[in-house]
């Protein structure tokens, strides 16, 4: 197969990074990205893009750690380069505080982030309602810059990018040899995955340029993440809610919770309120599948279901998905040579 034609469905952080990995591991592939939404209208654009992993219940920890490590290493190199500001990647230090000491004081990712340690008494005294905390330095991917930067890299690698709503993967079988499904929440409809469910998150993007540190409550519900131009205040975790409309009461509640962690936010100006549906699953689906219909086969690689942890593992899962695309190509080449016999 001279130039395998690969279609990547989805242009959020997963779709674009997966497409990029495929161009890197398979230079002879012709890669096309198809999506109905692009930055700034993807779920990824709502997220703060902090590299603080989520723990997937049904994915082995060593695999999650590998994904995180690959992602962190990749972004660390960009943050250290002249492209850092264009790519929207920057280091940020801060605190994760807990009202009661967590069962696991050392999360699996503590040796991947920088300078991880327990907070001192002096630092904790700033948070009278919290009795334990962790201090560390991690990376943040600001969107839209990061997605735009990925698009730029893709175009430079010859990738075609089209706006198109794909209702059924079979639509693509006549034009493409392999389909990569990075549809995020869209996979619910696209491949009818009943294990995929939305977890609604509302965030405020505020102007508060004096906030240089992140603060996150260990319960994952309240967080303050300083980005390049905006600070993301969050949030909510509403399982099963499909509503994309911001709720005014929720806005007030998020603002109040964040101000109790960081009182200076009283002086912050709310610039935008956004809602995203985290495409949640017990485990991230990074998997090969061969769809079959009327004697025709369509190799598919799935890469979706990253829930609240998409940014943290995106490059690692993209690498794995690209590897699976390689396997699909080998399988196709194997069967085509058998066909010649």
């Amino acid at each position: 197969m001279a130039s395998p034609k690969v279609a990547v469905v989805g242009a959020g952080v997963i779709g674009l990074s997966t497409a990029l990995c495929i161009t890197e591991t398979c230079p002879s592939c012709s890669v096309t990205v198809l999506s109905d939404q692009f930055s700034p209208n993807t779920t990824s654009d709502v997220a703060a893009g902090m590299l603080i992993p989520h723990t997937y219940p049904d994915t082995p920890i060593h695999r999650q750690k590998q994904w995180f490590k690959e992602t962190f290493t990749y972004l660390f190199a960009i943050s250290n380069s002249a492209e850092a500001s264009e790519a929207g990647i920057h280091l940020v230090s801060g605190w994760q505080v807990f009202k009661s000491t967590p069962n696991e004081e050392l999360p699996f990712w503590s040796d991947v982030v920088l300078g991880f340690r327990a907070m001192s008494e002096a630092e904790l005294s700033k948070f009278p309602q919290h009795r334990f905390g962790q201090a560390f330095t991690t990376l943040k991917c600001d969107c839209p810059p990061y997605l735009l930067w990925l698009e730029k890299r893709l175009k430079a690698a010859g990738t075609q990018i089209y706006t198109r709503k794909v209702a059924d993967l079979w639509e693509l079988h006549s034009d493409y040899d392999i389909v990569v499904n990075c549809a995020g929440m869209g996979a619910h409809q696209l491949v009818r995955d009943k294990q995929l469910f939305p977890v609604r998150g509302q965030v405020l993007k505020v102007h508060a340029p004096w906030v240089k540190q992140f603060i996150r409550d260990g319960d994952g519900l309240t967080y303050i993440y300083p980005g390049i131009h905006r600070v993301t205040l969050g949030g909510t975790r509403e399982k099963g809610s499909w509503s994309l409309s911001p709720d005014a009461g929720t806005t007030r509640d998020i603002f109040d919770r964040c101000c109790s962690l960081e009182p200076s936010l009283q002086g912050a100006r709310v610039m935008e309120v956004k809602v995203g549906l985290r495409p949640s699953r017990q485990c991230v689906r990074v998997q090969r599948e061969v769809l079959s219909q009327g004697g025709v086969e369509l190799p598919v690689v799935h890469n979706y279901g990253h829930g609240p942890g998409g940014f943290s593992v995106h490059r690692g899962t993209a690498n794995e998905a690209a590897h699976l695309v390689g396997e699909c190509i080998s399988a196709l080449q194997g069967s085509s040579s058998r066909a010649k016999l």
Partner: protein
Amino acid sequence: MRVAVIGAGVIGLSSALCIHEQFHGLVPSLELEVYADHFTPHTTSDGAAGLWQPYLSDHGNLQETLWNKETFDYLLGHMHSAAAKEMGLFLISGYNLFTEPVPDPSWKNIVLGFRNLTPKELELFPGYSYGWFNTALMLEGRSYLPWLTNRLTQRGVKFFHKKVESFQEVSGDGVDVVLNCSGMRSGDLQPDPELQPGRGQIIKVLAPWVKHFIITHNLKSGIYNSPYIIPGTEFTVLGGIYQHGNWSEENSAKDHKSVWDSCCRLLPALQKAKIVDEWSGLRPARPSVRLERESIRLGNLQGEVIHNYGHGGFGITIHWGCAMAAARLFGNILQEKQQLATPPGSRL
């Protein structure tokens, strides 16, 4: 009781506030006047980035270390108030970088979370093999000085735009105490060969992705003669110039190139940053801060001068500790005067 304060930088304004806060209740007749030829945003304090960080070593000057600590603790106490934003006060973490191991600084237990850098962190800074990470405070002069001015104005303190040529000039007419917070120009009021300019030049850029301070050190060239990057609320300050004895407040092209090139080497993404301003200022450097009383002949009267100058490149870092010390000296003066003027039985 009239007090004249000379100087409206961070030292003059904070000393005035500290004295007024402590004594106006005890001395109802207390009148404070601030005289200065430069007010915010044209003072030396306005040019400083505003990072709380003392020099590497206090050279055994424990008094200054104590004043630094008092300042840090005072500011940290204000962190949780809604006033923090107005004051230009916020927490910031960052890196101090060295090419060889160095002893821990006097301030390691004053700042938050002080620790050595890990090998992975050092990968960020090729050429540097050792360093510290800690969380400190920023106090931006461009916000703090107006905040101090507002507090003082609310308290009825008067301001006079005037270049004071002598202590006598401000101490006629019932002024009992003069607070000399004239920074670099103290030598004009009273010669002090120990006070020398430590000229600095900085470039202000737009680089909002930078969230940490980065201060490099070259033990041979001395403090602040090595690149540093300090992100503020609106701008990021690039610096790395300290020229002892240089009185020029003109920007130098050579110094610009040195700061720009060395900072871009440290953080390559800065090459894309937009330059918005450039500034040169004179750090009022002295082997130690001059914080003491002096009796001065003012016409046919004895007056008291409280000197509070010579804070070099750590004025913001040490200001509140010095303001408190100046207030204590003022308290002593008050006690002495009361003992002379008050009939027996009367008490403060």
